[in-house]
C-alpha cells in the first residue's frame, strides 16, 4: 500500500520533470513544422544568401542576412561594452572590495538584470540616443549603437555575477600562493585567478551573448525596424526578435506566409542560442568536475 503510494508519487514527480522535455520538444516541433512550411515555399538557399528581407512587400525577398546582421551587430556592441566592464567589476568585487561591500553591491548589480526590458528600451530611446546624438551628429533616431549599449548595461550583471562566482571559487590557496610570491592584486588577478577561473568566465560571456541575441524589447523599441545588411552602428536596423514583434503587432493570420516568416526567423534565433547554451553547459560541466 505504502509502496504503491510512493511509486505513484515518484511517477508524478517524474512526469513533472518530463514536462520540461515536452516543452523543448514542443518548441522544436512548433518551430520546425512552421519553418518547414516556410521552406517549402522559399528556397533555403535564398533564405541564407539573399541580402534583402522584404517578405511583407510585393517584391518579396526572404534573405535572413539583414536580420542576422542586425542581431549580431546589436549583440556585438552590447558584448563589447559589457565584457570589459563586467569582468572588471567581477575582479574588483572578488579581489579588491571589502566583503561587506560585496554583500551589498552584488544584489544591487543584480537589480540591473531585474529591470524589465521595456524600461531599458524607453531609456535607450529617450535618454541614450539623444545624448549620443549630441556628439555623433549623423546618428539616426533609431540605431544599433544606443540599443546595444543599453543592452550591454542590462547584461553586465550576468557577466559580473557569474564571473565573480567563478573567481570566488578559485581555491584560496592559489590566491595566497600568488600573493606569497609578491604579486600585486592586479597581477594576481590577471595572471593567476582569471586563467584559473577562465571556464567560468567564458561560460558567463557565452550566456551573456545568448542573452543579447535573444533580447527583444530594447531593440524593438530603440534599434529601429528596418532590416538592412549593414554593420554601421548609427543607422536603423532590425533584429530577428524585433521582426517577430513587429509582425506580431499586426494581425498574424495563421497559415499565411508572414505567419511562417516569424517561425523561420524564430528557428534561426533558436539554433543560435541553442548552440551557445549547449557549449556553455558543456564547459560548465567540465568546470564543475574540476573543483569537486
Amino acid at each position, binding site marked *: 500500500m505504502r509502496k504503491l503510494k510512493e511509486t505513484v508519487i515518484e511517477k508524478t514527480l517524474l512526469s513533472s520533470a518530463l514536462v520540461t522535455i515536452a516543452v523543448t520538444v514542443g518548441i522544436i516541433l512548433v518551430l520546425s513544422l512552421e519553418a518547414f512550411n516556410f521552406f517549402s515555399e522559399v528556397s533555403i538557399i535564398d533564405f541564407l544568401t539573399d541580402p534583402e528581407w522584404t517578405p511583407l*512587400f510585393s517584391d518579396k525577398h526572404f534573405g535572413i542576412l539583414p536580420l542576422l546582421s542586425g542581431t549580431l551587430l546589436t549583440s556585438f556592441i552590447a558584448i563589447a561594452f559589457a565584457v570589459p566592464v563586467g569582468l572588471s567589476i567581477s575582479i574588483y568585487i572578488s579581489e579588491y572590495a571589502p566583503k561587506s561591500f560585496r554583500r551589498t553591491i552584488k544584489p544591487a548589480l543584480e537589480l540591473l538584470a531585474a529591470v524589465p526590458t521595456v524600461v531599458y528600451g524607453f531609456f535607450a530611446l529617450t535618454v541614450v540616443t539623444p545624448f549620443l546624438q549630441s556628439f555623433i551628429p549623423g546618428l539616426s533616431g533609431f540605431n544599433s549603437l544606443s540599443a546595444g549599449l543599453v543592452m550591454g548595461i542590462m547584461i553586465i550583471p550576468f557577466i559580473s555575477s557569474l564571473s565573480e562566482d567563478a573567481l570566488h571559487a578559485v581555491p584560496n590557496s592559489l590566491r595566497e600562493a600568488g600573493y606569497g610570491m609578491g604579486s600585486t592584486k592586479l597581477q594576481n588577478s590577471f595572471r593567476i585567478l582569471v586563467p584559473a577561473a577562465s571556464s567560468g568566465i567564458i561560460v558567463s560571456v557565452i550566456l551573456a551573448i545568448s542573452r543579447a541575441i535573444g533580447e527583444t524589447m530594447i531593440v524593438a523599441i530603440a534599434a529601429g525596424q*528596418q532590416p538592412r545588411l549593414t554593420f554601421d552602428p548609427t*543607422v536603423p536596423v532590425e533584429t530577428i526578435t524585433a521582426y517577430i514583434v*513587429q509582425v506580431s503587432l499586426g*494581425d498574424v493570420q495563421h497559415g499565411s506566409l508572414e505567419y511562417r516568416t516569424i517561425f523561420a526567423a524564430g528557428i534561426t534565433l533558436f539554433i543560435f542560442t541553442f548552440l551557445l547554451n549547449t557549449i556553455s553547459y558543456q564547459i560548465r560541466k567540465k568546470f564543475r568536475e574540476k573543483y569537486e
Partner: protein
Amino acid sequence: GNNKKDKGTSSINIDGSSTVYPVTEAIAEEFRAVDPEVDVTIGVSGTGGGFKKFGRGETDISNASRPIKENEKAIAEQNDIDYLELEVAYDGLAVVVNPENDWVDCITVEQLKKLWEPGAQGNITRWNQINPEWPDEEIHLFGPGVASGTFDYFTEAVVGESGSSRGDYTASEDDNVLVQGVSGDKYGLGFFGLAYFEENSDKLRMVAVDGGEGCVEPSTQTVSDGSYAPLSRPLFVYVNSSSVKNNPKVVDFINFYLDEAPSLLKDVGYVPLTDAEYKEQKENFAAFVEKHQPKK
C-alpha cells in the same frame, strides 16, 4: 480566438486600422460614460489584419482606412458574413521630413512614385537621385507597415497599385517609430495619417504635394474639399450583421458613433464628413438594422 463571441452580449469586439483607431477609441471611451456595462475592446491590426478577423466573424466591427477588397469580401461571403460599410471621417496622408531639412518644400507624386515603387528597392537610396539639387546623402524612409490601410492607400494613390512598394524602408505599425524616426533623422522622409502629424507638428515638417495641379498642403480645408489629391481619403467602419442581430449594444454603439463623430473628430485631428453625409450613413445603418434585427 473567438471566445469573446460566446461570452454574452455585453462586449463589443473591434479591430482593424490604426488610422481609425483613435476615432473609435474616442467614441468607445465616451460610450463608456453612456453605458458602462459594455466592454469594448479595440485591437490595432491594421485595416487588412482587421478584415481578416472580420471575415472570420471574430469581430463585431472593423475599422478600415480603405474600402474592403474583393478577396476580403470573398472570404466574408464564404463565412456567411453580411456586413455594412459606413463612412465616418476623412483623413489626409501627410508626407513629412525633418525640421532641419531645408531643401524640400513640395514634392510631386511622380517623385514619390520614383521613391517608393518596388523598383526603387536598393536603387534609389540618395536624395539627389530624385532631384539633383538635393543633397548627396542617404535617404531614410519611414512608413506604415503592410497590414495598414494607410500603406494600401498610399501605394495605390502614388505607385498606382495597392500594396506595391519597395521593401527597404522602416515599415512599422507603431506610429511613434515613424514620428521618432523622421524627427530624429535629418535625412529622413515618411508618410502617415495627417492626425499624427498635427500632434507632432513641433518635431516634423510637412511637405506639400503636387498631384498635377500645383503644390497643396494638407489641412482640414484641403482634405474635406478634395483639393489635397491624391492623398486624402475617407475612413470607414464595417459592421457585422449577426452582431447587429445578436447584440443590441452594437446598434447603440454605432448610432452613438455616427451621432458623436462630428464633435469628437476635431479632438483627434480628423476631418468630419458633411452633415448631409452623416445623415446618409445613419439612414443606411437604420435600414441595415431593420433588415437584420428580428422583430420583437
